[in-house]
């Protein structure tokens, strides 16, 4: 019964975002960029919010060979900062603002938030394994070389070797930021998507 009511609610909700000037002040995008982003957003989600199903559908269009639903789920949680089960335009812009226009520190913070599934401030091996499996799922079956069963686990081991400085089995935010700042590749790749909009 609840789901029916929820559905009705979601169907009639027409979320309107904040005024353009307010969003411009809150994010690091210009007015024109916000206009373009909103047009795309509203086209796909006329009701003004994205729920997890739509999110997963949209994301899976970009990865036809694999299964991107798990990773999309984690992404959705990372974007849905107020945890109300829907990503509104403001949440969307907030996330994008950090990812595309934020400082390296902010980006690393965001990535840490993504990996920390239960948001307790620590990345455990299990959490990292889930994330890694989700990423490897997106590759699908037809890969070269053939994906082995323990490839994600091995990758997690490498990650922890690099990041976990005090070898206590968890990675804290400080360890994470410190280790990333030391790695040139990561620093360089963080700047990769600067000019996406």
């Amino acid at each position, binding site marked *: 019964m609840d789901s029916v009511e929820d559905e009705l609610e979601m169907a009639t909700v027409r979320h309107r975002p904040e005024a353009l000037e307010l969003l411009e002040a809150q994010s690091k995008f210009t007015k*024109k960029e916000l206009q*373009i*982003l909103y*047009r*795309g*957003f509203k*086209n*796909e989600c006329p009701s003004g919010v994205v729920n997890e199903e739509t999110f997963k559908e*949209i*994301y899976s*269009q*970009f*990865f*036809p*060979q694999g299964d991107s639903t798990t990773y999309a789920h984690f*992404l959705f949680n990372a974007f849905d900062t107020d945890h109300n089960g829907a990503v509104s335009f403001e949440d*969307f812009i907030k*996330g*994008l603002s950090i*990812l*595309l226009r934020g400082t390296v520190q902010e*980006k*690393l913070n*965001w*990535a840490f938030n*993504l*990996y920390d599934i239960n948001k307790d401030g620590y990345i455990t091996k299990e959490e990292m394994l889930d*994330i*890694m499996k989700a*990423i*490897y799922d*997106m*590759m*699908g*079956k*037809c*890969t*070269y*070389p*053939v*994906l*082995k069963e323990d*490839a994600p686990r091995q*990758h997690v081991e*490498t*990650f922890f070797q*690099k*990041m976990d400085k005090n070898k206590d089995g968890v990675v804290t935010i400080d360890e*994470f930021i410190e280790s*990333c700042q030391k790695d040139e*590749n*990561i620093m*360089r*790749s*963080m700047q*990769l*998507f600067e*000019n*996406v*909009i």
Partner: protein
Amino acid sequence: MAAGVAAWLPFARAAAIGWMPVANCPMPLAPADKSKRQDELIVLNVSGRRFQTWRTTLERYPDTLLGSTEKEFFFNEDTKEYFFDRDPEVFRCVLNFYRTGKLHYPRYECISAYDDELAFYGILPEIIGDCCYEEYKDRKRENAERLMDDNDSENNQESMPSLSFRQTMWRAFENPHTSTLALVFYYVTGFFIAVSVITNVVETVPCGTVPGSKELPCGERYSVAFFCLDTACVMIFTVEYLLRLFAAPSRYRFIRSVMSIIDVVAIMPYYIGLVMTNNEDVSGAFVTLRVFRVFRIFKFSRHSQGLRILGYTLKSCASELGFLLFSLTMAIIIFATVMFYAEKGSSASKFTSIPASFWYTIVTMTTLGYGDMVPKTIAGKIFGSICSLSGVLVIALPVPVIVSNFSRIYHQNQRADKRRAQKKARLARIRVAKTGSSNAYLHSKRNGLLTEALELMGTPEEEHMGKTTSLIESQHHHLLHCLEKTTNHEFIDEQMFEQNCMESSMQNYPSTRSPSLSSHPGLTTTCCSRRSKKTTHLPNSNLPATRLRSMQELSTIHIQGSEQPSLTTRPLPTTSNESQGIQGKTKVKCHK
């Protein structure tokens, strides 16, 4: 990629930042967005009606007329708009396709006009949305059939030497209008069926008396004449059956078909009669065998479309009829029992047993009321009246329901079959589209390799390369490339995957070849060198045949012939990318 989803590409790329801390390789460079044009409105003037849209909306589908540079041919310099001398009504649907990603088919449009417009704008009709696809396909099929009928009547006199004699004969049998000979044959068999049926009927009519004996039916009076007629009919039917058997494309299926069984049953009694004329005991059975001659009337169903449809609808409503029969049987048994016990007391009652009462119940429930059996007791009469009243209900109510079910189920069956066939086709198309997009990526990866190599050398060739794939596509491919780098595995198409699987289990794929995940000092060189190693490492073409055969036992993968891909090229996936591939390959030749 769907329309609006292209708008989400910046988001997907931004989200890729989540992979960065996990990756061990450096990421490839993002494609440069050289054309930093501001999004502008363009005006499309279609026969005087002006449509306006953003340029990026049209560029979502770069392989159509409006999305590619082909529209420049229609640019009018004086008015700074694109002028198309086409139907503005259909253009509305076409433009909405760009806007929403769904192509609709307006019902009031003529199907061939719509097809022409779609062909002009370079849009495949396969992408019509689910809401309108059925209607579109139905109209298209109707139109095609109509055209085909017209063509057939035109080509009636043409001879088709390409068909074999057997095939022409079968065609003549199935479709009497194809040639005059077939038409003649059709009418002759029809005539003989009618003659045979009338003969059977007239045989039993009393024909007047022969002086000195009682009244005889015509069959016994003119037995010779009737025998000759019967022989003639059976000969014609036998010849027809043998001809059909000879001409049938699948004899086994023909023998099993209903019509051929009817044919056989119709002519069997005659031959059986020929064989066993003298045996007295069996002649009784032989007489009843003549009943089967009446099945000849069913042969008319080849001649009548309506009979065939009736038979088919009865078959498809079998469950409904079965239920009616069942409920009737229940009611009959109940009332028969009741009447029997009610009338047990009265003397000289006709209701001697329950099965004897069945007859009364049936006659009463169907409101026939012959009157040969009537109840005499008061209880009997009461139950008798209840029986006739309920008879009306039991029979009259389901019949309209069944009648309406006939048409509903008939149409539903047809539509369900259609939908099933369409669904298979839809899934196949979606699969093709999916492999198309992933193949597009694999394809442009090859081209992209050259681009990168050239970029490293400092040659600004990317402008030429960039034109073969749109910006959105190249950004999408960059995203997929980043994922590959993150996981240190590459996308390959299914054929290569299966070949690799085969060859890996054959040659005990050495573990040293699997990419090591520990960080290397010179990561760029390792990644690049690994890629170049990959191009040289391809299955050898001189594998011993015995090993191949043993592999066939181990795996069920279909080994694709003896041709092996050459070292530097891989099989080209889809035709839509062929032109790109050819362009790419020629570029390789020039700049090697």
